[in-house]
Structure formats: C-alpha cells, structure tokens
C-alpha cells in the first residue's frame, strides 16, 4: 500500500515537469514581454532594457526554465512580476478562497445528491423521479455564469438579501463569510448537484436489484438499513470515480464563479496573470493545478479500497 502511494506520487513528477516546461515555453513564446506592461506606457526603452536584465528575462529560455525548476524544487516559485509579492504567498492567500469555495460546493453537491439521487432511485418512474431528473439535467446544462447572474439579479439586486460579491476571511468574520459565499457556492455546485444525483440514481438503481440486497431483504433487515449499509456504500464508488475526473473541471467552474462574484481566488488569479503576462504566477498556478488534480485522483483511487474491499493495490 505504502509502496503503491510512493510509486504514484513519483509518477506525478515527470508529468509536472513536462507540463510546466510546455507552459513555460508557450508563455514566453506567445505572450510577449511583460516588462513594458510593468513600466507603463511612459517608460523609455533604456529603462525597459534594464529591468528586463534585472529580471533575467534576457537569458536563453532553457536557462530561465532550469533556473525556475531548481528554485521550484526548493519551494521558491519566484516573485510576481506585477506585484513583486512572492508567488507562494500570492497563491496561498487565494488558495484559501478557492479551497473554501470548492469544498463548500462539493459538500453541498454531495449532500444534495445523496438525497435527490436516492429518492429518485427508490421511487423510480414516479413523479419524484421525473422532477429530480428534470432538475438535474437542467442543472448540468445550465451555464454557471447564467446561474450566477440570475442569482445576483434575484437575491442581490431585487430582493437585496445577500451581497452581490466580495470576500471576507472565514476565521475573522465567519458570518459575513458565509453570507458572501452563499451565492457562489450555489452557482458552482448546481452542475454537480445535477450530475452527482444522476450518477447516484443510476448506481443505486442497479444496486437495489443486486442479489445481496435481495438476500438482505429476505433476511428481514429493515429497508432503511439495507439502503444505508449496503446500497449507498456500494453506490458511492461510481460517484467517487467521477469526482476524480471532475476536479479539473471544478476548477474551470471556479474561474467563472470567482469572476462573477469578485472573489479573490486562484481562478481569477490565473485569468489576471494571463492578462498581465505575469509569467511566474501563471507557471505556479498551472503547476499547482496539475499537482492538485493528480493528487486528488490518487486519493480517489485509495478511497476505492476503503469502499470496496475487493480492490487491492499493487
């Protein structure tokens, strides 16, 4: 088991190197010079040249990449070209926001899916099933920026119950934080409520027909116990496997959600740093994203073993 984890973790390294090298090359070749941007339109060529030299941007590309990689290996991702803040700090600050947003959205989605998906499966073919399925398909196909805008229009502009955007730190102002995160959480989670409910519904339906459930019922175990102990536990496996696949996409959703609700998260950081040609930040966010997706996939694989004793690791 431990060996398996180590092997998987080691496999991440070449992939991360490959991806960051690709991004590094693309960013430098296509995105153009950040220095003029930094100095503004009143800067003269000499100052531009001097700053370029100061930042090491006049060196060959492979030297710059090797330099970046050797620093990154030691946990130093450089400084943002625009803010001159250490990249690790800039990313850390925003990771808290994106982390909270995605965890809240996923928790909401899972909780809602457990209720909706199970209800639809147990009463398959009924009006409940029909309503849930309709809701879920709408949830999956509604663009999240449309959802966000409609929520703002309704709850912030018309009813004025909730703020239209912004962020308050979770620990310093917990109540304000929850008020501010309510709409973004719903926006980001809606697609996953729909999607996970559909997945859960079909796997619960399949599990309800499985022999061990019939056996359980025959032995006189209560329906509730059958559902919770046997059916749900097995039905969660497909949910988990799609979660692993969806982590990357979740981040895509976070980019949009953070933009609509003016949340200072990693998604917006990525968009802003692309716009501002902030190479070290783009680089760091991409590396982080790669790493995050791969690690979550590993965790999902490990969770299989916990849910399904037949799975062994080699």
């Amino acid at each position, binding site marked *: 088991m431990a060996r398996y984890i180590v092997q998987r973790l080691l496999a991440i390294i070449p*992939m991360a190197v*490959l*991806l960051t090298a690709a*991004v590094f090359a*693309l*960013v430098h070749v*296509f*995105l153009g010079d950040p220095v003029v941007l930094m100095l503004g339109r009143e800067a003269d060529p000499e100052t531009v040249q001097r700053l370029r030299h100061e930042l090491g941007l006049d060196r060959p590309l492979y030297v710059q990449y090797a330099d970046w990689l050797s620093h990154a290996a030691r946990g130093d991702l450089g400084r943002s070209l625009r803010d001159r803040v250490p990249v690790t700090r800039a990313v850390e600050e925003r990771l808290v926001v994106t982390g909270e947003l995605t965890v809240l959205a996923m928790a909401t989605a899972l909780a809602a899916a457990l209720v909706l998906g199970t209800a639809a499966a147990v009463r398959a073919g009924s009006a409940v099933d029909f309503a849930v399925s309709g809701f879920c*398909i*709408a949830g*999956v*196909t*509604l*663009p999240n*920026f*449309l959802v966000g*805008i*409609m929520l*703002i*229009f309704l709850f912030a*502009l018309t009813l004025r119950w909730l703020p239209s955007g912004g962020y308050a730190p979770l620990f310093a102002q917990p109540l304000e934080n929850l008020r501010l995160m309510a709409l973004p959480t719903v926006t980001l989670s809606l697609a996953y409520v729909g*999607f996970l409910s*559909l*997945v859960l519904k*079909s796997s619960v339906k399949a599990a309800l027909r499985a022999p061990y459930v019939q056996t359980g019922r025959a032995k006189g175990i209560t329906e509730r116990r059958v559902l919770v102990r046997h059916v749900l536990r097995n039905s969660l496996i*497909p949910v988990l*496997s*799609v979660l692993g*696949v*969806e982590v*990357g*996409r*979740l*981040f*895509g*959703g976070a*980019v*949009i959600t953070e*933009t609509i609700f003016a949340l200072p998260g990693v998604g917006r950081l*990525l*968009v802003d740093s*692309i*716009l501002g040609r902030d190479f070290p930040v783009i680089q760091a966010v991409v590396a982080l*994203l*790669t790493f995050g*997706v*791969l690690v979550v996939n590993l965790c999902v694989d490990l969770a299989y073993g916990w849910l399904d004793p037949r799975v062994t690791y080699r």
Partner: protein
Amino acid sequence: MSDVRAAAVYGRPAAGRPRRTASRWRRVLRNRPLVVGGCLAGLAVAMALLAPLLAPYDPLTYHPDHTLEGPSRAFLLGTDNLGRDTLSQDIYGARISLAVGSAAVLLGMVVGVPWGLVSGFLGGRLDYVLMRLADVALVFPSLVLALVIRAFLGSSLLNVIVALGVTITPGLARVTRGEVLGIRSRDFVVAAVATGASTSRILVRQIVPNILDLIVVLGTAGMGGAILTEASLSFLGFGTPPPAPSWGRMLREGYAYLLITPWISLSAGVAIFIAVLGFYLAGEGARRLLHRERS
C-alpha cells in the same frame, strides 16, 4: 457534457454488430431524450439557417435613439447599448455558436479519431506515449485550456475554434481507442489481419465503419460542450471577436445593464441553455439508442 460524464451516467455502450429493424423509427420516437433534444437542437439549427428570414432587423444596425430599451412592439426583446435589436442578435448568435461549435468538433474529430485509431490498433509503446499525452491534456479543465490557448494565439474566430478543438481532441482520442481495442479482437478484424490486409486498409474498411455511429453520437454530445465553452470564453472576454453577435458576449455585456434591461443577458442565456440542452439530450438519446441496438 463530456463523454466521461455520460458514460458514468448511462454506462458505456457494449460493442456489437448493429441490428437494423423495421421498428427503428418507433424506437427513435419513443426515445424521449432524443426527441426533446432533437427538437431543441433543431430549433437552434433552424435559427442559424433561417436567421435572415426570422430576424426583424439586421443584427448590426444600430438605432441611436433607442439604446437600452425594454421590450416594445418595435423591439420585441428590447435593444442593447448601441440600440441594436436584441432578438435579432439572439437569432444571428445561433450562427456563430453553431458554426464555432461544429467547426471545433470537426477539428477535434479530424485529429482525435485518427489519434485514437492509431493508438488502439497499433498498441505497444506508441500507444503508451499517445495515451500519456492525452492524459496530460486531460488533466487540464477544458475551459482553462481553451483560455490559455486563446490567450496565446490572439483573438480571431479561427483561434477560438482551434482552442476549443484542442480541448475536445484528447477525450475523443481516448474513447476511440477504447472502442478500437474492443473491435480489434473480433473475428472479422482478425480475419482481415490474417489475410494480410494492410493496416490502413483494415482501419478504413473494417474499423472505421464500425465505430462511425459512436463517433456521430460523441460529436453531437460534444457540440453541446463546445457551445458552452465558447460561451464561457466569450463571457470572460476571450471569445468570438465583435461585431459578430455571440451569445456569451451578449451575456457579459448585458450583465452591466441588468437593472436597466435584463433582457439582453437573459435571452442570450436562455438561447445558450436551449442549444446546450438540445445537443446534450440528443447525444444522450442517440447513445441509448446505440446501446440498445448493440446489445
């Protein structure tokens, strides 16, 4: 809607020789997602094709005395910030969305299907390399990938299509490969190999016809995803360049005027929803049909 998502919901279609029966049309009509999806997607396609007949105005003609008006008899869904008719823009927007979406899917297929065919049929080390490559690309959320590519390439309609096409390609390659693996071991392919037919001949004559229906299904579902990603890109300001009316850009620009006239954003949003839902449902319906036919 991604293939992975759909596969997780409905299970992968099992391989099997298609059986064509007289009752096929009846099964098509009983297939609710296919019917509903087909109608919605058909609506979008009709809007695109018949735009000049349906739209009350030229979408680019501006009326300086009628900016940001609400719905009226002259302008059924009101006007935008330059005084252009919102309804006409919605209708012409279908052209952009469908053109960009289908071009991107086509591009994804032209690259992704051969990629999967070669990888699955030849196998070995090449297969390993090609699939790791797909994995690396799949790590990236499609929106972020499209965003980055589009930022690299600069703004033009073609670049948006390329960006979207690139995001579709690796997924298509993976599914195609899986399908090829299933077919490769079947009798008629083994027989063809035994008779010494060339690889390209087997691919074109034996394998492609057998996965063609699946490709069409994937393409239909992929359209929905491509339209959604294009709208997301436009919403973030990286999409189809003006003045061509694009639903995503209408949504973004209308967002600024929600309190004055919400119709710009809402109508464009509904249009996106209809198109995406239509292609998604049609794709799902077709997948179910295929599933049943094959089993």
